[in-house]
């Protein structure tokens, strides 16, 4: 029994305030600190992940975007327009029912 108590007693513990009153507060702030801690840990992990992403130069990325645009410009109806005959929205056409 003595051993048990010596195990619990810290070396300079001389708080005689009723522990029951203090404990719940410390426990809950402990828990919020814990959740803050885990949030922060997650944030740090996420930032590490994002920092390690492989990046290319903006000039290269921009050149590739431009190339894609120019390559597909011919097919872009909103850019170059469609021949009047084939525009499905041009005018309400009457369909011949075959």
């Amino acid at each position, binding site marked *: 029994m003595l051993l048990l*108590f010596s195990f*619990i*007693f*810290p070396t*300079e*513990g001389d*708080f*005689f*305030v*009723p*522990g*029951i009153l*203090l*404990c719940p507060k*410390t*426990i809950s*702030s*402990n828990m919020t*600190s*814990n959740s*803050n*801690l885990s949030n*922060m840990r997650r*944030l*740090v992990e*996420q*930032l*590490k*992940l*994002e*920092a390690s*992403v492989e*990046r*290319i*130069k*903006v*000039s*290269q*990325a*921009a*050149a*590739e*975007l*431009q190339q*894609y*645009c*120019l*390559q*597909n*410009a011919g*097919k*872009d*109806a*909103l*850019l170059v327009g*469609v021949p009047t005959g084939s*525009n*499905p*929205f041009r005018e*309400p056409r009457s369909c011949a029912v075959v």
Partner: protein
Amino acid sequence: FSLCLYLISPLVPEMATQEVQLNETLSHLKTESDTLKTKLEEERAKLHDVELHQVAEKVDGLGQFVMKTRRTLKGHGNKVLCMDWCKDKRRIVSSSQDGKVIVWDAFTTNKEHAVTMPCTWVMACAYAPSGCAVACGGLDNKCSVYPLSLDKNENLAAKKKSVAMHTNYLSACSFTNSDMQILTSSGDGTCALWDVESGQLLQSFHGHAADVLCLDLAPSETGNTFVSGGCDKKANVWDMRSGQCIQSFETHESDINSVRYYPSGDAFASGSDDATCRLYDLRADREVAIYSKESIIFGVSSVDFSLSGRLLFGGYNDYTINVWDVLKGTRVSILFGHENRVSTLRVSPDGTAFCSGSWDHTLRV
């Protein structure tokens, strides 16, 4: 009884020291996260050697554009909040504040189906790739899938399937490449991937600090990622399989209302309440262009690219649609016609037209 006191009170200093330790770790982690953030910015800045419009200087400018409203779809009783095209390039589904979800034939302007949802403010709707079903949701916190039947007399509401459940309003939904899975984003700050058949949650995506307002799936060739934008001013790119956020961009000054992938999948655009649209390149991991003018002060509600990615259409809260030259960063055209703010805008799958929905109860093609 002193024995009792001794039992309990020693725990207090123990916890006090524990708390001190925790605080130290917390501040340690905070400094680490701050250093990482600065390092991230530095790494991104290192590769920022040129602006997009500088690279595009040698490209021919675009001529004057004449885009006319070809069809006006009337029928909603209240503000149109969202719309989507069917892969057949002619059908459109739209949802409205009056709780109605209507499927239109854009060529004839006929209404093909109409469903009344049990809630008002249906903020999200999507067409299934097969064209056989539509998904919608809003203030009911759920995403429901309605199979479309050819029988006009059949009551669509009876066949409804509730797929997603969130703890706050549904802001956006989209089918993945098949009819079997739906991706949703919600005001509860999360995105989620669901299996339509079983209603099971397949993957959830946590990371936004506030409501998620929009999402867009990467074009099929480029893999399993999607981008989401939210009220925390961040646009996050996620891996659908792992649930991880792989990239994050925070340069907007206000809520991001709309995100859309560039047709090649290497970049995405976002539209925000700060009245700007921005283009972010995924491989350069940074913002590469801002589309704004001092005269534009109203927020952007919706953005979409033309087929080649050369044009960016933005629907604004000042009732107009601005058309931007993506490469040069200049405005090409302003389209007038709506009598209230433009809430949603989508280019048709084959790029021949685009549809805009507005708070003036109509849709224009």
